[in-house]
């Protein structure tokens, strides 16, 4: 067999360690910022960490976190899905409408129906993007309008109230299991499942490969079209799920559910360290980003800051997050270059 002279392999170089650390630093950094924010707020007002308030925080983060996980899948492939807010709206209204039409529908069926509706809408996005080869930003900006318009047409100004939905369903929106809100458990399950898939399955790794270098992905025989399509279906399905949970949590649905949330979701993903040009980041980071954004909103009033500062604080956070991320990756890149001369 062919063997050229073989010097010993040092499996751990500084560059690799640093790169791995960078991965950790990203997620840890957000967790740390979150911890700091909670600690400061708690110090100012201990009631911030009351059981009820924690529950509210988790509940408040749930829907944004689920949307952020879906968005992260898409952003990792160097695409973007601006239609998630509209998909959520349609799915939420569909949930209400289905309960009105068939009051006895089991909750599980309802969840599946929401996911299926979202998946179909996501398939519309993915189909246009993968087969007609058109940019995702344009297509999903278009479907943002189309899906929302369909929502309005369907709702025709109607509002579906809590009274139209079964109490069991609404209870799901507020109940807790071992102190954890049921809705947050949904989000956690989604997060862990998606996170595990992206790390440990070929399909997941290929999503990163596509985002990292689309041309190379094609030359490597990765079915990029199919994978990107699947990413949009997943993002749509999660937005559909979020729509059902939205209905359970708020009890009142009109055609405006989730209106304008798309940029919030992208913001959560970006704050969570997912590179907007694909290839790196994780869904854990994206979910943390969602929790952080929600917590800031909750913490400001507690800290005695006018709630009118919320938006500005969120904006500043986004800028800080992408700025820090750039500084960090620049350092990693430099150290990787220095370690370059490795072969004999």
């Amino acid at each position, binding site marked *: 067999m062919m063997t*050229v002279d073989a010097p010993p392999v040092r499996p751990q170089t500084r560059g690799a360690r640093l790169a791995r650390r960078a991965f950790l630093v990203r997620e840890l950094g957000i967790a740390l910022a979150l911890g700091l924010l909670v600690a400061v707020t708690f110090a100012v007002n201990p009631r911030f960490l009351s059981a009820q308030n924690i529950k509210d925080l988790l509940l408040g983060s749930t829907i944004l976190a689920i949307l952020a996980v879906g968005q992260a899948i898409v952003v990792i492939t160097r695409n973007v899905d601006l239609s998630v807010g509209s998909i959520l709206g349609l799915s939420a209204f569909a949930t209400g409408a289905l309960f009105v039409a068939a009051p006895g529908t089991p909750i599980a069926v309802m969840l599946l129906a929401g996911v299926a509706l979202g998946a179909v809408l996501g398939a519309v996005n993915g189909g246009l993007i993968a087969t007609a080869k058109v940019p995702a930003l344009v297509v999903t900006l278009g479907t943002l309008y189309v899906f929302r318009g369909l929502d309005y047409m369907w709702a025709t100004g109607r509002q579906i109230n809590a009274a139209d939905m079964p109490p069991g369903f609404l209870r799901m929106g507020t109940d807790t299991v071992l102190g954890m809100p049921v809705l947050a458990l949904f989000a956690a399950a989604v997060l862990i499942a998606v996170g595990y898939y992206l790390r440990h399955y*070929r399909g997941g790794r290929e999503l990163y*490969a596509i985002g990292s270098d689309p041309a190379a992905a*094609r030359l490597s*025989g990765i079915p990029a079209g199919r994978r990107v399509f699947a990413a949009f279906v997943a993002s749509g399905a999660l937005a559909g799920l979020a729509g059902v949970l939205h209905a359970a949590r708020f009890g009142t649905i009109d055609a405006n559910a989730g209106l304008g949330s798309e940029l919030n979701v992208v913001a959560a993903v970006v704050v969570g360290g997912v590179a907007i040009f694909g290839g790196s980041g994780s869904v854990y980071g994206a979910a943390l980003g969602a929790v952080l954004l929600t917590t800031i909103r909750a913490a400001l009033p507690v800290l005695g800051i006018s709630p009118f500062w919320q938006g500005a604080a969120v904006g500043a956070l986004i800028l800080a997050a992408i700025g820090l991320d750039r500084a960090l990756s620049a350092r990693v*890149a430099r150290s*990787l270059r220095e*370690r370059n001369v490795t*072969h*004999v």
Partner: protein
Amino acid sequence: MPPLLTLDGLSKSFGAVAALQDVRLELFGGEAHALVGENGAGKSTLVKILAGVYPPDAGTITLDGQPLSLSGPADARSAGIAVIYQEPTLFPDLSVAENIFIGRQPLRSLRRIDLAKMRARAAELFARLGVRLDPDRPARGLSIADQQLVEIAKAISLEARVLVMDEPTAALSGVEVERLFAVTRALRDAGAAVLFISHRFDEVFALCQRITVMRDGRRVSTGVTQSLTVDAVVRQMVGREVSAMFDKQPAAIGEPRLEVRGLTRHGVFADIGFTVHSGEIVALAGLVGAGRSEVIRAIFGIDRRDAGEVLVDGAALPNADTAAAIKAGIALVPEDRRQQGLVMELSVERNATLPRRWALTRAGLLFPGAESRAAATWAQRLQVKAARLTDPVATLSGGNQQKVVLAKWLATAPRVLIVDEPTRGIDVGTKAEVHRLLSTLAADGVAVLMVSSELPEVLGMADRVLVMHEGRLTADIPRARAGEEAVMLAATGQAAAA
């Protein structure tokens, strides 16, 4: 012995252009086979068909006597055909190990990726190649040579029976080329067929048993290397006799034109100082990665310099200001034509007039026709072959693209012309034209600074050879004393003491 792989009657056209016509090629196991031809001869199209990227319009591919139909890169890979492209195609965000095994990662239960096994197998591959690369490090930041090695590891891990290498050595240094060849010979001796595409004849003759020459999308000949000479191959490539390659005219060396003093960019190069006079051609030699391109980028103001100064005709240039450098009379023909030299989607005329678009204005405005007229003059003078000057420059052949780059800069009437690998990847005929042009320019009083990795070009063209090694200038050799040995010693850092 029957051939391992047979291509027969292969044709492919793009629009009206026939890129391949009725090409036949046989590859035997245990053979390294060279494919040579000028740019635009159809080599890259052939490679892309073998890789499964393009479907052929007509013709058959037979592997081991079985007809092979490739509907995508995945098909080619599973048939045992591995392709190493001119520019490596790695995923910068993925680890090196994942890059090797993407889509074929070893699995454990529940179809999960077996990370430990993947890492171990990558480490094993690198050990076999004799390189020290951490399988866990991301591909981002790897040098071109290391990236090429990862590609080779990928090819080996595929247990490829047919290995196609499209100009793999273009960016490699001598040592790296040697290593690549050692690996390739080992693969070949283990029974694989290697299709080797290169513009470097020394490599072709050193590595390959047979040589196939292509011209204008057709196969011209296939012959055994031992019975061929470089001259014969070149003649077949261009279809005519080639005049003397380095036709250097005598030029009067005049005043200093470009002066570089103490130029430094931390971690890249340090304390670079030299002068190029009017009428002089100075070559900047060195191995890839020695920092040559970086030096000229800093001179031209693309990158910021941390210390030092650059003077043109005695006047200092501001730091990191390309527009000022152009105004002072510097022109830079960059190394990477497609990424740096041209805006491929823009028309020939827009490209040709981009650097002096301000000079073509009247009252600050560009009136219709101003650019076309200016471009037409230069396109004619350099004999650029283009259907229409309003066509995107991407539709031109490599040699003609390089002429557009030259036209674009010569039109600015430069006093200092910097050329970075001016003849890389262009055909033999155009090469000679480029050399003649540089020589004429020098004779007209232009100061020419030429970065080149091709020693014959350096020795044939330069009045003086500057050599860089690891970011420092290690030698300044006048033409009379410049020889292959002297330059190589300085380039590898061994003459620094002398």
